[in-house]
């Protein structure tokens, strides 16, 4: 049980690392938000799933807590992409230009 928890948390952290690198290295606003939005949501969800197993007591899941964490996952799943969408939307309206290969618009 403990190892399942570790597994999920570590995988979540790997995704999170990817998110951070993407946020720093991608060339323009949209790709950065893409990295942040996707990676962030997934890694948060994975870490939370890990938590479900981590809070269990000697092989037994603590069902109430697990349910609460599932609810949190649900809301993260709704909230985080929406926030990313909102920022993308605003970015477009504010005139952030997408990057292209020629590197014209940084």
């Amino acid at each position, binding site marked *: 049980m403990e190892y399942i928890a570790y597994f999920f948390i570590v995988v979540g952290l790997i995704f999170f690392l990817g998110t951070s690198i993407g946020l720093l290295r991608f060339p323009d606003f949209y790709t950065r938000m893409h990295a942040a939005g996707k990676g962030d949501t997934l890694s948060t969800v994975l870490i939370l799933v890990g938590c479900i197993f981590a809070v269990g007591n000697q092989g037994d899941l603590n069902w109430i807590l697990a349910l609460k964490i599932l609810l949190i996952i649900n*809301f993260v799943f*709704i*909230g985080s992409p*929406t926030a990313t*969408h*909102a920022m993308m*939307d605003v970015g477009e*309206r504010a005139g952030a230009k997408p990057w292209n290969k020629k590197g014209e618009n940084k």
Partner: protein
Amino acid sequence: MADLPIWHYDTLFLTLALLFGITALAMQNLMGAAIVFGAYSFLMCLIWTTMGAVDVAFTEAAVGAGVSTVFIFATIYNTGVSATPNSPRIAFKIFAGLIAFGTGAFLLSALPDFPDWGDPKSPVNSTIAPYYIANSITDAHVPNIVTTVLADYRGFDTLLETTVVFIACIAIYSILRIDNAKSKVTEPDIITSPPAYDPTDSLIIRQASRIMVPFMQLFALYVIAHGHYSPGGGFQGGVILGASIILLSISFDLKHVLQQWTEKKIMILTALGVLIYAMVGLACILMDGVYLDYAALDSVLPGDEAYARSHGILLVEIGVGITVMFSMIGIYINLASNGRFDRGL
């Protein structure tokens, strides 16, 4: 993990928090400063959670990181983003720095006199606090000691704190609201209903918040009602309730919210919350108790004296929740619309 002294993982957080705080103050872009300030507040929540102060962390998450950041945003929305100073004022800054440095050094001069961090035998932890821990259950049947102390042992502080929120609401209304020099007391003009579909508004955001808001409100009510057994209480619940309305007004349009929450409603409900609290106290006097001595309400509330206290705490928490919720909405509406009550963030 549990064997580590507290400071082992706090060191990292504290240093980060310091960094965030300095960054927030150093940024030229005010919007960025506000965002970093929000992150700083969240970091503070983590620190407080590791120190075992869950209620404080909860409040800070709702108030510091949530609502105050939104307040700063609303202000920036109505004003300007850039903070380029016209004059650097170097000499003055150095002077202020010297004052701050001197004060800091003076504060640190007391350091050797301090008890170690986390010492359970320090005066703070061994004078009054043990009484609360030992008697919360017998006095009020409330396992969450913070709730008992907040609403019962030091209930007067909480009444005043509610009053502070009430004052903030009135103050902001009186500062920001733009009266069109009408001497007659009237409702603000009926706001025309917004168009059914605004092309600049995103359907996705609307739908997402439509799904979220009921759950937020449900959760807030749970936080208020369950404050006896878990972290939370009137303040946190009230702030979350207020935040749900603020979310609606951000994702839809401020007009929607303005139509629903007129100044009259908000002020009456805000005052009502304080009134509930104060009246519960007065009821105690009328029933031969001292002010805010909920045990005197024994004869009207079910259960024995300790349960009377428990129910009394619940009653005042409801009052606090009402006041906090509506004043948060009121403050937000004012800050976001710059006192005009027509449009805004």
